[in-house]
């Protein structure tokens, strides 16, 4: 097992955002965490990547306890987060953004390989190498955020709502990319509000409701689960 979360609790002051979460991610999987707005999805990824403190519980990665490790150290464990809202560095060029993604690495030749890999996945970024990230379109910024996260050569990639705010054709493209990144050997933990799409690419899924896991299991089975259908796939299942 690659990632094991046990009884994770997070407090923001008096707000009890995560109330004892247990989760697992195995090597090679795409696992998705779905849930409505405010359920605690981003908080979960924040706790894994060291941005928010766990008040209780344990996060283990490849057998090592990484609970409350500062964010800048979590990256060197080969976990990397593409955050909600992209958070690219607007005044820095596409290339500088990607270079920052490789901040923890030092081998020049290997870093160049990663640049090539990202440019292969996202040819549009290559055309805009020198352009400030703030001038990219929303879709391009999302590609940059994912590409930047890949530059650290993560074993586990955490994606927080990569399809948010994108046009439908771009959403499809992003999900295709998620699958191909996974096929190339990167394990993925995906957060989505677009539950239908997320369940269709994922192997397994967890459903989060106000800080607690309410359902979990095989993604395809959950897709047909009446509780999931009514709560999260409501407006999509008419196909």
């Amino acid at each position, binding site marked *: 097992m690659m990632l094991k979360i046990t009884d994770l609790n997070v407090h923001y002051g008096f707000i009890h955002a995560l109330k004892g979460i247990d989760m697992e991610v195995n090597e090679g999987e795409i696992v998705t965490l779905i849930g409505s707005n405010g359920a605690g999805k981003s908080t979960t990824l924040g706790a894994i990547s060291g941005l928010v403190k766990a008040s209780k519980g344990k996060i283990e990665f490849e057998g090592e306890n990484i609970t409350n490790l*500062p*964010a800048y150290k979590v990256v060197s464990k080969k976990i990397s987060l593409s955050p909600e809202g992209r958070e690219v560095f607007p*005044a*820095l060029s596409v290339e*500088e953004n990607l270079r*920052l993604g490789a*901040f923890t690495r030092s081998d020049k030749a290997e870093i160049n390989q990663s640049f090539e890999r990202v440019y292969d996945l996202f040819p549009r970024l290559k055309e805009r190498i020198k352009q400030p990230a703030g001038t990219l379109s929303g879709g391009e910024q999302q590609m940059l955020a994912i590409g930047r996260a890949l530059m650290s050569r993560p074993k586990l990639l955490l994606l927080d709502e990569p399809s948010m705010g994108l046009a439908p054709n771009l959403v499809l493209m992003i999900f295709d990319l998620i699958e191909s990144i996974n096929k190339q050997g990167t394990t993925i933990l995906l957060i989505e509000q677009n539950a239908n799409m997320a369940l269709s690419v994922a192997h397994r899924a967890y459903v989060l409701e106000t800080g607690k896991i309410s359902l979990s299991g095989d993604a395809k089975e959950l897709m047909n689960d009446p509780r999931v259908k009514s709560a999260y796939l409501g407006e999509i299942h008419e196909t």
Partner: protein
Amino acid sequence: METFIGAVINGLALGMAYALIAVGYSMVFGVLRLINFAHGSIYAFGAYMVYFFISIQVGLFWSIMIAIVLSGILAMLVDKLALEPLRKKQSIPIASLITTVGVSFIIQNGLALEQVFTSEKKGFPSLNLFPNIMIGNLTIQSSQIIMFAVALVLLAVLSYIVNKTKIGLSMRATEQNARAASLMGVNTNFVISFTFFLGGCSAAIAGTLISGYYQIISPTMGATIGLKAFAAAVVGGIGVLYGSVVGGLVVGVVECIAAQYLGSNVRDPMAFVILILILIIKPNGLFGKKGVSKV
């Protein structure tokens, strides 16, 4: 005409040294959105350290080197001991601001203690290291040339560090989004310390250059110059390095011309006259980015 050119040359030399102080404000503002009012006192501390090490017979060169490093460390300690705890507690920004003012007084008065350097003015070795240059009736002092050249080279080095090195890239990333920078693996606390260190070093160098020109130091020497350099940083657009250079030069030249023709009492207020005029015309300073200068 010669007096005018003389004033301009004087202004360019002083202005370049102001620029060196101004970048310290600018860099710290960049990473923390904080105006570090302790900066002027680090400038004075640097000059006093040179004075002290020379007085105990360490040669000029090594006295300056040691002073630079000690000033960098002091600036870093100011952040670690007084400012970082406030950031950790997520205090309101004004708390950090008033802390820097307080630290400035502590350092300044520390230097003035009877047991330390006393509040009396001290003589400082001249930095006229080679003969003055005469062009017609015009004399250019070698300390002016040294001040201009050293400050220019150091500003180029700083600009190289910020724009071309890995630590510089992490500074610029921290400046834009510290949270995202930490997700890239950047230790933002280290970046902040490093920024204070660089600022402290450049303040000490400026302190040495300017003291070597006036040949006099006092514990309060950083107060006025610190404010002037801050004005220069704002004139150029705080957070923009070349803005500080232009701002420093404008302030230096204008104040020297004003002092030449209107009397030396006009010198010190000029920086603020310029500041007010520029801010009315360009609220973000000459090269300032929109939306960055909100404090």
